[in-house]
C-alpha cells in the first residue's frame, strides 16, 4: 500500500487564513421550509474566515456545483463548506467538485442540516435556524484547521464474492463473468435458486419457475469464471475495499475466498405467522400463500385437495405479517412490528387466484384486503381478471382485522367491509390462505462483521435509494435483490446486474483509492514516550523509530484503522487521525458553545 498522507498541519496558505466559501442548500424546500437559509447565509457571511456565503435551491445539481467551481476560479476560494443533506449522500459529490477545480478534495466540510435539523425541528423554525448557524460555524472552524490529504492506494483483487445464489446473486455473478471478473457464489442452501425454487408459474412472464431456474443454472455452470459453493455457512468476513477475506464452512471443511468486492444477495424469508395467528399452526386447513403455490404445483386436475379434504371455497387474507400496526399486531422478537408493505404479495396472490380459477373454476374465492397494491407493469390486469373470474373482494381497515373462527366443518371469516359501508360480512370456507409477507434473511453475522447499515424494517439499507441504490455505506460492498427490500424477481435480477456493474467499475483499475483517515504523527511534537503504542489494538501499526537522531512514534498506514485510541493518550497531541484532529473538534465545540 502506498501511503501518502500529509501531516496534521493545515494546508499551506502562506501564513494567512485560507478563503472559505459556505453554501447553504434549500434542498428544494426540504431544508428551507424550516430553516431560514437566507439568515444562515447572512450570519455566515459575517463569520471570521468566510470569504463568501451563498444559498441555492439544489447544491447537488449541476447549477450548484458550477457555483462552487466559479467561486473557486473567480474568487480564489480555497476551502468549502456545504450545509445540506446527510454526508453519506453528497460528501463525495462535493469532494469531487473540489478535485475538478484543482483543489485538494479533503479541504471540504459537509454539514448536515436536513436529517439532523430541518426534518427534526419542523415546529421550531427559529431554533432550527439558530442550530443550523451553530453547526455551519463549527464546520467552518473544522475546515480552517483541515490539512490537505491524499488518498492511500491499495491493490485491487478483481474477484467478487457473491453471497446468496438466488435470482439476484446468480444474475450478478453472470454479469461479472461477462465483464471478465471471477465471481464466487457462496450459498448457504444445498442448491442455487433461492425462493425461485418454490414457485410455480411466475408473473409477469407466465414461465415455469423451474424452467427459468434451469436456464440460469446452465448459464452459471457453463461459465468458467464462476465458482459455486453450496451448503456454505459464512464464518467470518473481514478486510476492506479491494481486499476482503471470507471464511466459510461447508460439509467438506473450512474454505477461504479473497475478493475485491462483495455483493450481498441474501434475499428474504417468508413471514411465519405466530402460532394461532388466524388459526395458523393450530386449526386444520390454514396455510400461507407460498404453501398454496406449492400445493398447486402438484395438485391433480378438477379436484383441489388439502390434506385429503376437497376444497370448494377459500378465503385469502392479505397483509399477514406486513403493514402491521403497533398495538394491533404481535411484534417480532426484536419488539418491532413489520410496518412495511411486502409489495410483491398482492400481485402474487392475484396471480395465484387466477391460476387456481383457470384450473378449478368451481372453487369459490373470497379475497380480503386492506389495499390492493398490485404495482408493476400491467399487474392491475391480475385484479381485473380475478374480478371477471367472480372472485369476491372485501376491504377492511387497519384496525378492524378480519376475525376467523375455525371448526371441524371449516372456517367462518367475519369482516367489516368498507366497500359496503362497514357491513358485517360473514363467509364459510374450506381453506384459509394467509397472504404472508417478506422478511429479510438473517444477516446478523454479515452486518455485524462488515458493519452494514440496516433500515428500521431490518432490510439492508443502501446509501441512497435514488442516487446510489445498490451501494452500501461500506466501500466495496453492494446489495442486490430482496435483501434490500421486498421486490419481485424482475427487480431483483435488475438489481443483481446493477450491483455487478458497480463492482466491475470499482475493480476496473489495478489500485483502489482508500480514505486517508489514519493516524499521523507530528514528529516535532513527539517526545518518544511510547504511550500511544500501548493503546493501539492493531499489532505493528505503531512502532518507535529513530528519525533524525530522535526516537519518535511511526504509523504504518496500511494497518491503521483510524479509530483514534492513540490520540487520547498522547500528552503532547503529537498524534492525530488525519481529517479528524483534536484541534478541529475542540474548535467545533467552542463554536457550538459560543453561538
Amino acid at each position, binding site marked *: 500500500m502506498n501511503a501518502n498522507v500529509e501531516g496534521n498541519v493545515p494546508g499551506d496558505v502562506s501564513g494567512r487564513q485560507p478563503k472559505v466559501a459556505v453554501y447553504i442548500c434549500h434542498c428544494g424546500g426540504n431544508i428551507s421550509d424550516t430553516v431560514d437559509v437566507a439568515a444562515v447565509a447572512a450570519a455566515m457571511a459575517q463569520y471570521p474566515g468566510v470569504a463568501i456565503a451563498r444559498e441555492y435551491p439544489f447544491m447537488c445539481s449541476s447549477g450548484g456545483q458550477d457555483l462552487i467551481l466559479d467561486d473557486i476560479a473567480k474568487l480564489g476560494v480555497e476551502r468549502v463548506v456545504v450545509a445540506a443533506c*446527510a*454526508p*453519506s449522500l453528497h460528501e463525495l459529490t462535493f469532494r469531487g467538485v473540489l478535485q475538478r477545480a484543482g483543489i485538494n478534495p479533503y479541504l471540504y466540510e459537509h454539514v*448536515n442540516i*436536513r*436529517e*439532523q*435539523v430541518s*426534518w*427534526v*425541528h*419542523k*415546529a*421550531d423554525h427559529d*431554533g*432550527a435556524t*439558530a*442550530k443550523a448557524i*451553530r*453547526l455551519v460555524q*463549527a464546520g467552518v472552524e473544522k475546515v480552517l484547521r483541515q490539512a490537505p490529504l491524499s488518498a492511500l492506494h491499495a491493490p485491487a483483487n478483481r474477484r467478487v464474492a457473491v453471497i446468496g445464489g438466488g435470482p439476484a446473486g446468480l444474475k450478478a455473478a453472470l454479469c461479472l463473468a461477462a465483464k471478465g471478473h471471477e465471481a464466487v457464489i457462496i450459498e448457504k442452501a444445498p442448491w442455487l435458486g433461492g425462493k425461485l425454487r418454490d414457485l410455480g408459474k411466475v408473473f409477469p412472464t407466465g414461465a415455469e419457475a423451474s424452467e427459468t431456474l434451469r436456464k440460469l443454472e446452465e448459464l452459471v455452470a457453463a461459465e468458467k469464471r464462476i465458482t459455486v459453493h453450496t451448503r456454505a455457512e459464512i464464518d467470518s468476513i473481514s478486510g476492506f475495499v479491494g481486499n476482503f477475506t471470507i471464511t466459510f464452512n461447508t460439509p467438506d471443511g473450512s474454505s477461504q475466498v479473497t475478493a475485491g468486492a462483495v455483493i450481498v444477495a441474501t434475499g428474504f424469508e417468508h413471514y411465519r405467522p405466530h402460532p394461532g395467528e388466524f388459526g395458523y399452526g393450530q386449526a386444520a386447513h390454514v396455510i400461507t400463500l407460498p404453501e398454496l403455490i406449492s400445493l398447486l404445483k402438484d395438485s391433480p386436475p378438477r379436484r383441489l385437495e388439502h390434506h385429503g379434504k376437497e376444497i370448494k371455497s377459500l378465503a385469502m387474507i392479505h397483509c399477514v405479517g406486513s403493514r402491521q400496526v403497533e398495538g394491533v399486531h404481535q411484534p417480532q422478537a426484536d419488539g418491532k412490528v413489520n410496518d412495511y408493505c411486502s409489495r410483491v404479495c398482492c400481485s402474487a396472490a392475484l396471480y395465484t387466484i387466477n391460476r387456481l380459477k383457470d384450473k378449478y373454476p368451481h372453487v369459490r374465492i373470497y379475497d380480503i384486503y386492506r389495499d390492493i397494491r398490485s404495482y408493476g407493469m400491467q399487474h392491475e390486469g391480475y385484479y381485473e381478471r380475478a374480478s371477471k373470474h367472480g372472485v369476491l373482494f372485501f376491504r377492511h381497515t387497519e384496525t378492524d382485522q378480519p376475525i376467523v373462527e375455525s371448526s371441524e366443518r371449516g372456517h367462518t371469516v367475519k369482516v367489516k367491509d368498507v366497500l359496503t359501508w362497514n357491513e358485517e360480512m360473514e363467509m364459510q370456507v374450506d381453506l384459509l390462505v394467509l397472504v404472508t409477507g417478506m422478511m429479510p434473511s438473517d444477516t446478523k453475522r454479515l452486518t*455485524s462483521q462488515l*458493519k452494514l*447499515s*440496516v*433500515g*428500521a424494517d*431490518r432490510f439492508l*439499507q443502501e446509501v441512497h435509494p435514488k442516487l446510489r441504490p445498490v451501494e452500501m*455505506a461500506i466501500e466495496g460492498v453492494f446489495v442486490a435483490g430482496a435483501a434490500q427490500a421486498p421486490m419481485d424477481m424482475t427487480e431483483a435480477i435488475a438489481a443483481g446486474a446493477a450491483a455487478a456493474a458497480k463492482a466491475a467499475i470499482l475493480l476496473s483499475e489495478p489500485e483502489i483509492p482508500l480514505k486517508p*483517515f489514519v493516524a499521523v504523527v507530528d514528529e516535532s511534537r513527539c517526545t518518544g514516550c511510547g504511550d500511544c503504542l500501548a*493503546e493501539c*489494538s*492493531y499489532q505493528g501499526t505503531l512502532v518507535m523509530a529513530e528519525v533524525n537522531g530522535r526516537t519518535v512514534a511511526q504509523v504504518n498506514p496500511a494497518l491503521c*484503522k*483510524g*479509530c*483514534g*485510541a492513540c*490520540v*487520547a*493518550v498522547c500528552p503532547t497531541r503529537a498524534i492525530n*487521525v488525519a481529517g*479528524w484532529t*483534536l484541534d478541529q*473538534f*475542540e474548535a*467545533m*465545540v*467552542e463554536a*457550538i*458553545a*459560543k453561538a
Partner: protein
Amino acid sequence: MSLKKILIITTEHASYPAANAVGQGRMGYDANTCIIRVPDPVMFPEDFYIRAFEKGIGGIIIMSSGSDCPYEGAYERLAKRVDRVYAKMQEGGIVPSRLKLTTICSVCRAAFLKEIAEMEKVVAAL
C-alpha cells in the same frame, strides 16, 4: 452562562446513521442539541469533556457503538476513560449526570430520542 446546549458525540458507523434515521422518520427533538460525528469517541482525552463543560456545554451524550464497534478494544477503553472523566467532574464540582455514555446502533431511533429526552431533563435542572 446558559447551560442548555447538549453535545451529542456520534460514531460514523452507528449512531450518526441512527440520527439520520430519526430525521428520515421525521421524529422530533429539541433544537438545543448539536451532533458531531467521529470515527470513534475513544479518541477524546478526559480533558476534552471537561473543557467542553467549561466552554458552556450543558450536557454531553456519548453515543458509542458498544459491542458493534468496528474497532477492537475501543469500547472498553472508552468506558474506562469515561469513568476517569466522572472522577475529574467530581473534583471540579460538575454534576455527573451531565455526561452520559450510551450505545446506539444505526437503527436505534427510539433509544436515540430517549437519551436526548433524559439529558434535556438534566440540562433543564442546571
